[in-house]
């Protein structure tokens, strides 16, 4: 496993910065079951970091640990060089970590626009009274947030469905709306849980383009879980490979591709997928 020195430049000229998120010896248990066994890895500013592995390898649990939804029994989470105390998920979100979910977690009762607007909640400072009267600060904030959101809508090219209730959207678009919601929060770190699961080739291409553009235009750091090895290899700067809750590989796509354990793990699951 080759450790990259902090601050380097990728061949396509993107500046990768210092370590942003550092996971140290994380262990997570449900009752007796160990979902994550003593895993450490880091995510650097500006990079696209992939977490791969067969089903049930603990990838999603890892993401849930990062977003504070699960509290690991052991290990530490360091964010921006500071050790993170046990926090609630919504506090994590406010530190600038946004995410999407493996099986879409949109708010079915709301329109696309409102769903994305929820991504701006952390930027709303006006109090209840102000909102009740809907004048001055509250209305100003609403408008500012809407402006931001519209930029995102434009960026992800979903103008046509702005006012549609998400319930009526096809799968692919829902995924995109979810990404929009995450982007609306202007996160420093974006976690994507299988952003392309169940998509056809075209949708996958679009989504890959969007992910690259996000990283490129906004310099957002991205950690993503993905099954499609091809996609992962194209997108990511570095890859962590998990299997049965253990880390079995970490490095650039090429390094990982030639890692024997990884090959075994994948051959292992090749036939049951």
């Amino acid at each position: 496993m080759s450790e990259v020195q902090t601050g380097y430049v990728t061949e396509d000229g993107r500046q990768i910065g210092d370590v942003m998120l550092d996971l140290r010896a994380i262990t997570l248990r449900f009752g007796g079951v160990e979902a994550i066994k003593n895993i450490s890895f880091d995510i650097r500013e500006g990079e696209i970091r992939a977490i791969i592995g067969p089903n049930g390898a603990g990838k999603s649990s890892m993401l849930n640990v990062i977003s504070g939804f699960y509290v690991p029994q052991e290990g530490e989470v360091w964010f921006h060089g500071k050790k993170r105390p046990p926090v609630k998920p919504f506090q994590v979100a406010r530190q600038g970590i946004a995410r999407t979910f493996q099986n879409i977690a949109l708010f079915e009762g709301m329109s696309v626009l409102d769903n994305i607007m929820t991504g701006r909640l952390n930027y709303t400072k006006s109090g209840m009274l102000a909102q009740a009267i809907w004048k001055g600060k509250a209305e100003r904030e609403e408008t500012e947030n809407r402006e931001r959101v519209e930029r995102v809508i434009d960026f992800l090219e979903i103008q046509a469905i702005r006012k549609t209730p998400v319930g009526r959207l096809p799968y692919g678009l829902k995924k995109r709306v979810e990404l929009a919601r995450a982007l609306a929060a202007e996160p420093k770190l974006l976690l994507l849980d299988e952003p392309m699961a169940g998509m056809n080739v075209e949708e996958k291409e679009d989504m890959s383009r969007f992910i690259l553009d996000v990283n490129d235009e906004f310099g957002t750091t991205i950690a993503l879980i993905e099954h499609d090895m091809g996609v992962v290899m194209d997108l990511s700067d570095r890859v962590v490979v998990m299997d049965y809750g253990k880390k079995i590989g970490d490095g650039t796509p090429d390094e990982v591709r030639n890692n024997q354990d990884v090959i075994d793990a994948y051959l292992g699951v090749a036939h049951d997928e």
Partner: protein
Amino acid sequence: MPADFYYGIEVVLNGLMAGVMYALVALGFVLIFKASGIFNFAQGVMALFAALTLVGIMEGQVPFAHLINATFGTEIHHFGWHVPALLAILLTVGVMVIFAWAVQRFLFRHLVGQEPIILFMATIGLAYFLEGVGDLMWGSNIKTLALGLPQGGARWIEDATAGLGGDDFYGFFIDKLDLVATLVAIVLVAGLIAFSQYTKHGRAMRAVADDHQAALSVGISLNFIWILVWSLAGFVALVAGVMWGAKSGVQFSLSLIALKALPVLMLGGFTSIPGAIVGGLIIGVGEKLFEFLVGPMVGGATENWFAYVLALLFLVFRPQGLFGEKIIERV
């Protein structure tokens, strides 16, 4: 003060008896909830309805007499015969089965896959409907249920325990009916357990409770099971109705015991029969004791809310109830 101590014991005993009654109603909830995930708010009204029906049949009342008379200006009330208790009970059970079928056929079949809360609210509607029907069918006047169940205090216990706490203690007063109820309850529970353990349908019922899909895949008819469960619940309701009815007359307030059963469930957990019983006992004893000890200071009638507040506090610390196991949330 020994006498008070013994009165305390007497309170506890009565509490236990009352608890059994609560448990009886709670059982109905558990049955349905386990099998179909429906929180049947109408359970209490079912008890009322069952009791009304039983009385009505025994008395040979003409169903919907009011309505008929009102519309056609007739003056019919009774068929003029009296049906023996046992037959009447059987007939009532029949009615409850039909009711179960109707509920399944016309309500819940159309609500498959809805969120629990929707189903819950549907049962509230059902409760209203059933109450209305009950009143229309049999009239809303208070009726006495003459099944010849033993009534009044059990002398022998009283005599046996008189003077335990000194001269000013006249022995435990315990209503025979409560004793009967306890026995019936025990029999009923035993019966239910036996049914679910040793009969084909019972096992099917449990399978459904564990996993709908799996049950379907092994060819169990959900529809049938649900009707079965509702029928059982109807039967339990009948028993509860009879007991309460015999105790305090068959009247609207009877349907309110359902409300009492809710905290019981919250304590015991919605899915566990033993839980329902333990919960019932806790509530029964708890509220009687609280009334006995604290009631006088605050003007009494604390039974009205004690159970709920207790359950509320309890839930805050253990949301899954006594017997439910911890919920792991996933995303």
